């Protein structure tokens, strides 16, 4: 039980899908964050797509997804 023996039947391929799905889920949650919150602290006039922290987060997650997809 504590050793997670009950998950020993799950293959490495299935486990990989779980990991990839987790990244997608986090990405979706990031997209739900209000833009106003992502820009908090930036003056209205200085708000551009490149300082939208949601896009930063999606970019990082995309690279992470790629690493786990390859390996």
């Amino acid at each position: 039980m504590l050793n997670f023996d009950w998950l020993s039947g799950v293959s490495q391929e299935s486990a990989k899908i779980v990991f990839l799905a987790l990244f997608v889920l986090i990405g979706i949650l990031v997209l739900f964050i209000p833009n106003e919150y992502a820009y908090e602290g930036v003056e209205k006039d200085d708000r551009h797509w490149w300082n939208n922290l949601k896009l930063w987060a999606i970019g990082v997650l995309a690279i992470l997804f790629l690493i786990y997809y390859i390996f």
Partner: protein
Amino acid sequence: MLAGIDYFIVIAYIVGILLLGYYFKRFVSSSEDYFLGGKSLPFWAIGMSIVVSDIGAMDFVGVSGQAYRYGISVGNFDWIGSVPAMLLAAFIFIPYFWKGGMYTIPEYLGKRYNSSVRTIASLTWIIFFAVDLGVLFWASAVLLNVLMGWPVWVSILITATVVGFYTYFGGITAVVMTDVVQLVIMFVGGLTLVFLALHAVGGWEELVDKISNMGPEYRQHFDLIQPSETKTPFPWTGILFGLTFVMANAYMIGNQAIVQRCLTAKNEWHAKASMIFGSALKMLIPILVLFPGLMAIIIHPGLEDGDRSLPMMIKSTLPPGLIGLMFSAFFAGLMSSVDSLLNSTATLFTKDIYEPYIKKGADDKHYLKVGKITTLVLLIIGILTSPISSKFPGIYVAIQTFLSYFQGPMFAILLLGIFWKRTTQWGGLSGLIIGIAFAIYLNTFKAQFFTIEDPFLYVSWWSFLVGFIVTVMVSFFTSPYSEDRLEGLVYKVTGGKNNNKQ
């Protein structure tokens, strides 16, 4: 052994860092300057500092050793074991801590729960940091002993003197700004080693082919996701439940040395951005620390101690001049980790122990002085405790073992504290104590419960779960604080209001 040019580079680096760190002494005139950099630092410096602080000696030496033994699965710690947690920290936790004007994580726990929780959390971190310091000192001594034949204690004393000097005078601003330089040097030195070593083994595809054909024990050296029944410490179940869900979050959200940097940000956007920028840099770290261990399998097969793979690679692969650069890179990683621990522990002790229990209401200069003295005392403790880590088989795993005792329960009460207003002070206190006790119990009798080599990932998961359940159960039977009392501390209670604050 180092050549003359290597010695020159190393000495120039050490002197340069000393001077740079000392320069920031002029910006320290209050305890807020010393502990929070006057809340004036930009995201890029903080992000770089977070990353370089997290990859000290333990990653350079320990992760290379783990990669030598187990393959790329150790990279999970810097990928899935960091990025999602850093995003959660950036968007949920850091803004609360930053807006609340916190100095420490236990300070938040004290406001959310009670002073007992604050004290237990703070003392636990102080003890862990002291032990961690010893581990870092020992790691440096191992490398210096192999590379230069320096006696272990000489290496430890040199490291302690250099780092202690600029941390004592410059506070966290010196720590963060020297970290920026140290990250650049670390990347240049580390990447140089990787490219030359990759060339020496005939390229990436050749590396994969050779290792994969070395025998059955090497077949899964290039699988990030290991089977749940693997004998390595990194089964996918442990990586997902223990690392991703618990330890990563506990580390990035509950670790004073990490979070304190974000609290130095000049505004909320910089605080959030520092974590996300740091997560992007973090993904590059396995290239620096993991690849040399893999390549050592080909160039130095059959090493009994995997932790010797990186020093051996440096000696055999790099020409004079570049050895000095790589050595400086290692020194950079080591110093950045040590300075973080020193400053963070000084903050924890001054703010969570000294100020509430020993001398309340003193003037700010007094607390600044206490912070500086604590830095020196911790340095001595770190030196004296450094031989402890030699009793553990792997340096990196040793640190994870220390962490797994309390990371799970700590994260459980942080999570419930910020997301569930019904969580009570007694729930949090019980969850923390019983969770830590359960983790110690599991570690003590691990042979009866687990089949893998080192089950620290499983221990952190189960102790988190126990801490979580105990906190919830006790909370149901005790009285919660009023909503007024929880303003600014709980997500649902303050979310809308706080979004409009600067």
